[in-house]
């Protein structure tokens, strides 16, 4: 039963595109996915004939709730002019489009399809903040919802367990926030492109213009400690520990490995894919790690024949600052209880030994939940194909990157390793 898993046929990634991520009152999922599709199509070096697309796998968490519309597979197949190509909508909470990617990989690996469009979309921002929080909480365990937990609350509780076990504190989570915001201005697609220092300067400027009391924060952490600038959402999670509300779409073109050179001379190859399920706060083995992340990572490492040390950089699911901390330990980059020290030492910064969330992460790039898994892989694509501009990982021999996506209270986790040969 525990056989070593591998793909029956190699799969390559030959195109990728994403919409802008932001809160758009005037654009819906069709508009956003069309933007992503056009960018993806233009990214295929030797061109894409849309008629060659065999099938679509679309991740979407809950447009049903956010936009009162479901059935996004067929709707998008139609809006892209791809009818009658079959379209399957996949739901795995915030990991929906990483699951769509994985299903697309399997569809090609099985030999059934040659060219598959995978991606995701979410249209979250049309309701109030409370409505968005209620929609996101649909992915919590029923018992958590009955106990009043929101998602910031779930991750806040996990933070208290981690702090108690390892002696970390809010101050260490601030290192993660500051790092993500330092990467963000380098990403033209980021929803929030300001560093924490940029924001401090603009708030001080505004206060001076208004003639009110001018804040005198000594540094970024002093700013983040200020309950006016950074109020509690679900203590110890504060505003700057939480990703924003975003609308957006992302899509990727996958093809059979032997067909890749018809599309580009520089494809990426799927080295490993892993997915696992986990339990909520009441039943998880432990509250200081995500069991599903560990299982997904092990599956992907084994398939790829790689170890954590081989992953040169990664996007990890930082829906909340504490989540990034757990993931970098769960993925084997750092030992349990050592992650926060590694972050404090700068090891996860863009110029560190293990750059994490070079895109600015969900925190700054934005988190349209159904699109996030695909968008993370697009960051890996851009880095490995030397298209990341000023945020390029400073490594002359960049070949292997990975993305980790999480849904719910760690109920669904994926780990995907891409390789440039």
């Amino acid at each position, binding site marked *: 039963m525990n056989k070593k898993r591998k793909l029956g046929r190699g799969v390559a990634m030959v195109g990728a595109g994403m919409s802008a991520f932001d809160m758009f009152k005037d654009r819906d999922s069709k508009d956003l996915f069309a933007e992503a599709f056009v960018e993806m199509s233009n990214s295929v070096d030797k061109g894409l004939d849309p008629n060659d697309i065999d099938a679509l796998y679309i991740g979407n968490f809950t447009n049903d709730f956010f936009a009162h519309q479901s059935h996004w597979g067929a709707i998008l197949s139609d809006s892209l002019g791809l009818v009658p190509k079959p379209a399957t909508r996949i739901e795995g909470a915030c990991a929906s489009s990483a699951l769509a990617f994985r299903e697309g990989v399997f569809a090609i690996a099985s030999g059934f399809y040659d060219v598959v469009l995978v991606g995701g979309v979410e249209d979250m921002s049309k309701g109030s903040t409370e409505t968005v929080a*209620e929609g996101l909480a649909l992915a919590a365990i029923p018992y958590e919802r009955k106990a*009043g937990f929101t998602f910031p609350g779930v991750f806040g509780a996990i933070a208290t367990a981690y702090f108690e076990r390892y002696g970390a504190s809010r101050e260490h989570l601030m290192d993660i926030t500051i790092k993500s915001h330092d990467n963000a201005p380098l990403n033209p697609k980021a929803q929030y492109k300001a560093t924490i220092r940029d924001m401090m300067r603009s708030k001080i400027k505004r206060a001076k213009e208004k003639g009110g009391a001018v804040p005198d924060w000594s540094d970024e952490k002093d700013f983040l400690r200020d309950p006016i600038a950074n109020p509690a959402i679900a203590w110890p999670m504060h505003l700057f520990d939480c990703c924003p509300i975003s609308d957006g779409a992302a899509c990727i073109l996958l093809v059979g490995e032997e067909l890749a050179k018809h599309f580009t001379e520089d494809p990426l190859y799927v080295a490993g894919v892993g997915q696992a399920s986990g339990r909520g706060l009441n039943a998880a083995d432990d509250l200081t790690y995500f069991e599903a992340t560990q299982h997904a990572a092990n599956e992907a490492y084994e398939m790829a024949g790689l170890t954590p040390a081989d992953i040169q950089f990664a996007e990890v699911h930082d829906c909340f600052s504490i989540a990034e901390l757990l993931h970098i330990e769960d993925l084997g980059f750092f030992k349990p209880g050592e992650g926060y020290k590694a972050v404090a030492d700068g090891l996860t910064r863009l110029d560190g030994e293990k750059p994490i969330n070079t895109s600015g992460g969900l925190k700054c790039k934005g988190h349209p939940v159904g699109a996030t898994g695909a968008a993370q892989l697009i960051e890996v694509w851009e880095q490995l194909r030397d298209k990341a501009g000023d945020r390029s990982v400073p490594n002359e021999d960049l070949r292997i990157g990975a993305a980790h996506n999480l849904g719910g209270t760690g109920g669904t986790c994926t780990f995907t390793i891409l390789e440039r040969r």
Partner: protein
Amino acid sequence: MADRPISDYQFERFLDEGKLMGARCVGCGALFVPPRAICPKCHGSEMEWMETRGEGRLVAFTSISIGPPAMVAEGYDRNNPYCSGAVELVEGPRVVARIEGVDTRNPETIKVGTPMKAAFLQQGVDEERKTVLGFMPVDESRAS
């Protein structure tokens, strides 16, 4: 009591009666709170109700300033946050619950490890009325 089907519905009816009940696997003896119809340890499907002592210790918590509509309706907001947490029962299982009797405006005073005792909270009115599982510090529950 033993005749009731193993379900979340019945678990909540027990909460109405002021009892925190779990399901014990007849096959391997493992206990689950809330109950499960199938034992994830041995995959047995013969489960029986067992009453817990309703005692444990706080293992994780959060003080929530922005809650869902149901909590907002109860009067909770930025100025009046509420606490949710996880409690490890003396019998072993971990449960999630509302945490009462703690200073939610000063959450740094709330400590992981605090001994807790179950409290059965009434939420909503009339037909919406239901019992929600809560816990409060043992010292607090003695005082009240």
